[in-house]
C-alpha cells in the first residue's frame, strides 16, 4: 500500500499494563559444538530465573503459555524445532507457538508475548528465541539466508543477502552521503564502536579493538560493504518473562530489580525492495511535513520515499510504538537504544526511520557523538547511546534470539545491573573468554527508558520494543 487508512493508523492499545519481569541469555558464538540448542535455551531460562533470585522450577510454575522465536528451520534441519525446545524445557502441556519473521523474529516473539498478556489470555508467558547457524559452513549459510529473499526474483542473484543491502548502501552513500569519503568513514566508525563495546560483553562473539582503517581495508563482500560492515552469524538463545502487573509484583518480591513496562509495535514493507512504490513520508511526532518539502533539493535523488534509502517498516513500527508509550521525541524521551545493525548502512538508515535524526541526516547521530556511551567529542555521556551490547556486528545475530538479547540489554541499563552482569569474572571464565585489562563499565547512568529495534529482510518486518521504569512513564494511561 502507498496510502494508509485511519483504521490502519490507529494507535494500538493494550488492554492492561504489561511488564518485562526478567530475561536471560546464553553465551553467543559462531559455533558452539559442545551444546545442543536445548542446552542453550536452558542456560537462558536458568539465567532469567537467577536474575530474580528464583529457581527455574519455581519460575516455570508461573508460565501459562509460550512463544518461541526461531527463524530458520533449514539451518537447524529440524522442522517444528519449537516443539523440541518446549518439551526439553518441560513446559508441556502448556500452549505454545512458533514465530518467524526473519531477522525480526526476536522482536516479533516479544510482540506476541506482550499481546497474550495484554489480552488477559495469560498472566505470565515465556518468550524464548534461538538460532543455530553453525550446522552448515558459511557459504551454505549465506545460501540459506538468501532463501529469505524472493526465490524466483532475488535469491538466484548471487545467493548473498549482503548484496541486497549493498545496493541500499550505494544509493544512500551517493544521495545522502553525497559520495563523500567522510560518510564512508562514519559507517566504519559504527563498526569500530560496536566491535569495541563487544569487548566489554562476556556474551559477545566478536570483540575487537579496531580502527576506521581496519574496517576500510577489510575484504569487500558487496561493494561498498566490507566484512567489518556486516553482522555476525551466530549460535545462541535468549528469553524474557512477560507478565501482568500482579504477577510481575509477585515475581520481583525478592528480586534486585523492579519489573519494567513493555510495549511492542510492529511494521512491515514489501519483501522485495523492487516492489516499493513512491509515497509520502509518514511523520513521527517530532517531525513536520514542511521539513521534508525540499529533501530532494538538499539531497538530489533523495525525493523518492522510501526508495532504497529508508525503511517504511521501521518508521511504522516506531509510529505505533511511540504512540502507545507516549514517546514524542526519542532524543528527549529515551535514554538508551539497541538498534538492528545488520549492516553499518542499515544502522544509519534506522536512525532516520525512528526519528533520532530527520531523513537525510542520520550520519550526524554518529558524528555528533550522541550515539556513544561517552561522547568522544566532549568526554561527557552520549546523549542517546546505542548498541552498548556490541549489537549484531559485535555481539551476535542468532536471529531468533537477537531482538530478545537487545531488549534484555536495554533492561539491564534501566535496572542499573549492566556492570554486575557484564563485569562478573565468573561469567567470563565460564565462557572461556578473557576479560580485557581495560574492561570498562558501560552502564548508561540513570537510564529510565529505552527501545530495541528488531528488523528483518531488507526491511520486510520491523518491531519497536519500548521499555520504561514504571515510575518514569511518559503518559498516565499508557
Amino acid at each position, binding site marked *: 500500500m502507498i496510502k494508509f487508512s485511519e483504521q490502519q493508523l490507529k494507535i494500538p492499545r493494550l488492554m492492561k499494563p504489561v511488564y518485562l519481569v526478567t530475561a536471560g541469555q546464553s553465551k553467543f558464538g559462531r559455533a558452539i559444538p559442545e551444546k545442543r540448542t536445548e542446552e542453550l535455551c536452558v542456560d537462558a531460562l536458568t539465567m532469567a530465573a537467577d536474575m530474580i533470585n528464583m529457581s527455574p522450577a519455581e519460575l516455570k510454575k508461573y508460565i501459562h503459555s509460550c512463544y518461541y522465536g526461531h527463524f530458520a528451520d533449514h539451518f537447524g534441519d529440524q522442522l517444528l524445532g519449537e516443539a523440541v525446545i518446549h518439551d526439553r524445557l518441560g513446559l508441556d502441556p502448556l500452549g505454545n507457538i512458533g514465530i518467524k519473521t526473519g531477522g525480526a523474529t526476536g522482536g516479533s516473539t516479544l510482540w506476541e508475548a506482550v499481546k497474550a498478556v495484554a489480552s488477559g489470555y495469560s498472566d505470565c508467558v515465556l518468550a524464548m528465541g534461538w538460532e543455530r547457524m553453525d550446522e552448515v559452513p558459511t557459504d551454505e549459510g549465506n545460501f540459506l539466508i538468501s532463501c529469505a529473499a524472493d526465490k524466483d526474483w532475488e535469491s538466484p542473484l*548471487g545467493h548473498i543477502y549482503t548484496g541486497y543491502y549493498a545496493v541500499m548502501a*550505494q544509493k544512500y552513500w551517493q544521495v545522502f552521503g553525497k559520495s563523500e569519503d567522510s560518510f564512508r568513514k562514519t559507517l566504519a566508525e559504527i563498526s569500530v564502536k560496536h566491535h569495541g563495546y563487544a569487548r566489554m560483553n562476556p556474551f559477545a562473539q566478536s570483540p575487537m579493538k579496531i580502527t576506521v582503517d581496519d574496517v576500510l581495508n577489510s575484504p569487500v563482500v558487496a*561493494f561498498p560493504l566490507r566484512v567489518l560492515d556486516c553482522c555476525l552469524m551466530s549460535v545462541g538463545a535468549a528469553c524474557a518473562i512477560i507478565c501482568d502487573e500482579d504477577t510481575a509484583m509477585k515475581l520481583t518480591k525478592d528480586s534486585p530489580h523492579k519489573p519494567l513496562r513493555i510495549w511492542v509495535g510492529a511494521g512491515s514493507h514489501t519483501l522485495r525492495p*523492487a516492489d516499493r512504490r513512491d509515497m509520502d513520508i509518514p511523520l513521527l511526532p517530532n517531525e513536520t511535513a514542511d521539513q521534508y518539502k525540499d529533501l530532494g533539493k538538499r539531497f538530489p535523488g533523495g525525493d523518492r520515499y522510501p526508495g532504497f534509502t529508508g525503511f517504511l517498516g521501521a518508521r511504522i513500527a516506531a509510529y505505533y510504538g511511540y504512540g502507545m508509550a507516549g514517546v514524542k521525541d526519542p532524543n528527549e524521551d529515551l535514554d538508551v537504544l539497541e538498534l538492528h545493525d545488520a549492516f553499518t548502512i542499515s544502522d544509519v538508515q534506522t536512525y532516520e526511520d525512528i526519528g533520532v535524526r530527520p531523513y537525510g541526516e542520520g550520519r550526524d547521530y554518529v558524528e555528533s557523538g550522541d550515539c556513544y556511551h561517552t561522547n568522544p567529542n566532549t568526554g561527557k555521556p552520549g546523549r542517546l547511546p546505542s548498541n552498548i551490547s556490541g549489537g549484531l556486528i559485535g555481539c551476535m545475530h542468532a536471529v531468533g534470539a537477537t531482538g530478545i538479547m537487545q531488549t534484555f540489554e536495554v533492561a539491564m541499563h534501566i535496572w542499573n545491573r549492566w556492570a554486575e552482569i557484564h563485569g562478573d569474572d565468573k561469567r567470563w571464565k565460564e565462557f572461556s573468554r578473557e576479560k580485557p585489562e581495560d574492561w570498562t563499565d558501560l552502564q548508561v547512568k540513570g537510564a529510565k527508558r529505552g527501545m530495541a529495534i528488531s528488523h528483518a529482510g531488507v526491511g520486510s518486518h520491523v518491531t519497536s520494543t519500548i521499555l520504561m521504569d514504571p515510575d518514569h512513564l511518559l503518559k498516565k494511561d499508557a
Partner: protein
Amino acid sequence: MSLFGQVHVKNKKYKIKGDFHHLTPNMPIRNADDGWKLMGVTNPRDMTYIHMYGGEAPFFEALGEGKLLATRCDNPDCEFKGTVYQPFRIHCADCLGRNTVIDMTENAKTTATVHTFMVCERSGAFNVLDKPIKFINIEFEGVDTILMSYLSIGEPEIGMKVVPIFRTKNPTYTILDLSWVPAGTKAEDLPEGFSL
C-alpha cells in the same frame, strides 16, 4: 549414473522421471582435543524440488523469447488504476484485481536507467553467476517499481542508461535469463547465449 529429476504436467498431474534425491552416507564428527570422542554426525541431503510459477510463468517463458513482460492494473474501480508493475505482479497490490500482461521490451530498451547498484565479490553456495556480480536496480519511465537484476558488461553507475539482454539460447527459465548491458553495446560483445 543417475538421471536428473524431471517433471511435466499432464491432465493437471505431475509426471515425474529420474532421481529426486541422492544418497550420501553420514559421517561421525569427533573431538580432536579430547580423545576423538563422538560429538555429532553429518547429515547429507540433496533433493530436487518441484516449483510452479503459476501466473508468473508467461514472464519467465518470454525471457527466453527476448521479451520483457510487465503487468498493469486496468481495474476502473482501483484507486491506483494504471499502476505498472515490474517485477511482474499477477494481482494489483491495491485492488487485488488480476493485472493485464503488457510487453515492455521497447520501453526497457529506451528508458532503463540504473537507480542503484553494487558489486558483489562473494556469493553464497549454489551461485552460478560470474564474480564479481554487478547487481543493478533499474527504473523505467511509466513503471512504478524498480527491478533488481545484474549487469553483464561494463561498470555500473547511478543514472547509467542500460538495455536488456536475454538468454535466448538454452534458456534456464529463471530470472538469470534476463541481464543488462550499457546502451550501445554491440550484439557481438554479448555473453554466450544472450541476444539484444
